[in-house]
């Protein structure tokens, strides 16, 4: 049942063909059987899941169920969950049990979704491969020698391995779209401010945005609709209330204008990815869409701008992890400064330390204008590029990642190569736009390739409609790894 669409699972629950407890049990069994191989989960909450499933069954019986009631779901371990370990993939928080729920967690709990566990991730969401986790790398279900992408790699792998039908993620520079692409599933990052960041452990506050993973755009629409909405506890939360992002799914694509940024297609994309992307675009034309070349001249500056802004914010956001109130504290230390140094040196991994150092540097007196202010200006230019492009088109399409999933260990010694794997996704975060990745075929080694769709502000419903129509006429999203 877990491989079915949310619509079918919900119908089966409603029709008493399956109970929420049975579904949770199925999900938990799959996780317990597959996690040793995939390492998608940091925490499996069997007791909590079964209790939540029981409550969901009561709700189903009472006839007060919603579209997510009784549906098993996994949360990226960046979301605080009351009473359940929240590690953020770090040794620093390896003992941290949150006393409160993130807004997203509360909303989905209230919707009756059954959380089965917390998924593995790059430490503090910093990474593109899930290799930066204190709890070991997550492996790609399509080939366990390959990375699942990151930083929400655990959630993407869990959905790809059909352990859960849906999962939450966060996307700061591509952390939902890239693992969705590498794992052959659908993932959406909404407009910045759609999903409350309250209780979502901050990496780079002005870029972080929660989003959804599922088998299909239709399923992502259901999950995202239950996650989004204004939250007064997050000052950057948009005023818009909750909305049904699936409202336009059935709209035909005739007349849709798809913009193709020439810079995305110029170079850098590997041949297999290019072939799949081109084929997907051809399919869209078949569905009635027209394509138009657009230009994002400053997109090439997205990576340098991102690697100033994100580390700057991160260096400050991660200052609270000082060993004083919670989290890891070194066993032996001399004075206060020694406690700080040892606790943080022991608690953080290499990539986190690298970004803290970079961020501290770019904010330092004498460097701030040259780096931080300049990067903010680039950010504005990049957003302007998109605004100009959207004068000519309704959605923008392109690759998600320049290559299919790379090998575990392949780029881990070369941070710049690793950073470049986010070249197509990062500009979207800098502009605060919504972006989606859907399966679009397979490349070298039979590994999935995703297509990225970028929407204008508040254009989630349109993105999901576009992807859904594609998925009505293709079956890439229904393919599962051979091992299943």
């Amino acid at each position, binding site marked *: 049942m877990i491989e079915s669409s949310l619509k079918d699972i919900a119908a089966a629950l409603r029709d008493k063909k399956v109970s929420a407890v049975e579904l949770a049990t199925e999900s938990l069994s799959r996780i317990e059987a597959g996690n040793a191989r995939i390492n998608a989960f940091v925490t499996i909450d069997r007791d909590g899941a079964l209790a939540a499933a029981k409550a969901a069954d009561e709700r189903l019986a009472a006839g007060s169920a919603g579209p997510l009631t009784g549906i098993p779901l996994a949360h990226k371990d960046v979301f605080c969950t009351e009473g359940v370990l929240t590690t953020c993939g770090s040794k620093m928080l390896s003992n941290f049990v949150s006393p409160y729920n993130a807004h997203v967690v509360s909303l989905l709990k209230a919707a009756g979704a059954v959380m089965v566990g917390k998924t593995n991730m790059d430490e503090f969401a910093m990474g593109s491969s899930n290799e930066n986790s204190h709890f070991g790398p997550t492996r790609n279900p399509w080939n366990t020698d390959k990375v699942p992408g990151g930083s929400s790699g655990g959630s993407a792998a869990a959905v790809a391995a059909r352990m859960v039908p849906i999962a939450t993620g966060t996307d700061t520079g591509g952390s939902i779209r890239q693992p969705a692409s590498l794992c052959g599933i659908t993932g959406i990052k909404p407009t910045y401010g759609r999903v409350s960041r309250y209780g979502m452990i901050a990496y780079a506050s002005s870029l972080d945005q929660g989003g959804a993973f599922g088998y299909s755009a239709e399923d992502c629409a259901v999950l995202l609709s239950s996650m989004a909405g204004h939250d007064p506890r997050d*000052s950057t939360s948009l005023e818009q209330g909750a909305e049904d992002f699936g409202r336009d799914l059935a709209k035909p694509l005739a007349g849709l204008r798809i913009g193709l940024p020439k810079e995305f297609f110029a170079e850098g994309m590997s041949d297999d990815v290019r072939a799949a992307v081109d084929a997907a675009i051809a399919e869209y034309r078949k569905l009635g869409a027209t394509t138009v070349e657009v230009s994002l001249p400053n997109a090439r500056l997205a990576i340098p701008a991102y690697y100033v802004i994100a580390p700057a914010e991160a260096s400050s956001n991660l200052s609270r992890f000082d060993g004083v109130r919670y989290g890891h504290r070194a066993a032996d230390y001399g004075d206060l400064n020694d406690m700080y140094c040892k606790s943080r040196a022991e608690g953080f991994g290499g990539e986190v330390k690298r970004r803290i150092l970079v961020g501290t540097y770019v904010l330092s007196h004498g460097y*701030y204008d040259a780096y931080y202010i300049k990067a903010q200006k680039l950010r504005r230019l990049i957003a302007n590029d998109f605004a100009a492009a959207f004068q000519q088109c309704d959605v923008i399409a392109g690759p998600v990642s320049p290559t299919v999933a790379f090998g575990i260990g392949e780029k881990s010694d070369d941070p710049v190569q690793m950073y470049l794997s986010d070249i197509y996704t990062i500009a979207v975060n800098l502009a605060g736009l919504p972006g989606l990745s859907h399966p679009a075929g397979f490349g070298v080694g039979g590994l999935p390739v995703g297509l990225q769709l970028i929407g204008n502000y508040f254009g989630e419903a349109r993105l999901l409609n576009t992807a859904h129509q594609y998925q009505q006429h293709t079956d890439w999203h229904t393919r599962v790894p051979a091992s299943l």
Partner: protein
Amino acid sequence: MSRTDWEVVIGLEIHTQLNTQSKIFSGASTAFGAEPNAQACAVDIALPGVLPVLNKGAVERAIRFGLAIGATVAPKSVFARKNYFYPDLPKGYQISQYELPVVQGGQITLQVPDGKGGAYEKVVNLTRAHLEEDAGKSLHEDFHGMTGIDLNRAGTPLLEIVSEPDMRSSAEAVAYAKALHALVRWIDICDGNMQEGSFRCDANVSVRPRGQAEFGTRREIKNLNSFRFLQQAIDYEIQWQIDLIEDGGKVQQATVLFDADTGETRAMRSKEDAHDYRYFPDPDLLPLVISSEWIERVKGELPELPEALSARFQGEYGLSAYDATTLTASREVAQFYLDTVAAAGAANAKTCANWVMGELAGRLNKAELDITASPVSAVQLAGLVQRIADNTISNAIAKKVFEALWNKEGDSADAIIEAQGLKQVTDTGAIEAIIDEVLAANQKSVEEFRSGKEKAFNALVGQCMKASKGKANPAQVNELLKKKLG
């Protein structure tokens, strides 16, 4: 040996704790004195994932302050993070305002005592005032080699008010601090409780040879929590800097602490190991936008300000600048005075001022009572003033009546005058009778006066007043006595 004539330059940074119910970025209570960490919520202790939400009440108080000092209330200001590690700073940064503060410019006019019983006017310009959050407290006692952290104060809203380096003596600095202290209470944005740390002063002090245009190197004295300490610390610091320079030394920029026990200042850290706070706009908070409608509404709700009221007291009631300033030192004193004048009549405004600032203030001070707890009400005091004005009682008797009112011996001045028979005797016949008696009993003085001793006259007046138990009208006694002896 010629000594340089040194000029002192002082600027103050004053942290006022805003009197909101809840903290500046969380819903936790700001009440003072709770059990440690009982008033620190998830946001205050900086749990992973929590976010700040700005308290509008704190902004409104900043607007009120800006309007009260004639400053620009910025239509858009920005919260920034000031990054540094300290155990009582839970996030590892303080949310403050850096490049774009909410209040910009403004000035305060004050009366500075000149040390000779008078005062002179001084205008102090303000640089800015910005909103920020307070840190928690580190407790070093009772923990045997460890440090306790109390985060109740973490997130308490502060308005940091920064002056230009406009003050030229400790007396001016204290007068400025007092005026600001009075103002923030007047407009009800801060309780002004210095013992509880609601009003804390940092003083930037430097000296330069008089006539030199550029400033000397300054040292910043931190955390002065009484006006007396402010004065002592600045005076000590000035002398220390002058001595150092005259001995051939050079002042190094530094942060210093004042030791109240020794009365000395000592360096805490020098510029070399100063922090680089790595300020940047807080991405968790949107820029603070204040609409002109909001400003207009706050303006409409502002009470009449001390400067305006003081000017009115001088213009309408003919009070001196010093008296008017004294009576507008706090809203409570001003209100008491206004109530007294309202009941006694504007013609008696000057007498009312003398009584509020004199007898009443002295008595309250001795009894350590606030004017709002005065046993003598404004209406009662007005009744007393009226009886002085219409010659029912003399000033001397008035003090007796005041004492009786203080001791609740009667409900009004009239009732006490009546009950205790204190009414001034103005009946010429009655006074003449007293004079005759006195003259008969004091023949010696009479003879002395007649032989040219003017002093004897005063002695006879005194005897007459004594014989009348102080009730005889002194002017009439004088006049009639002169007539009888002449």
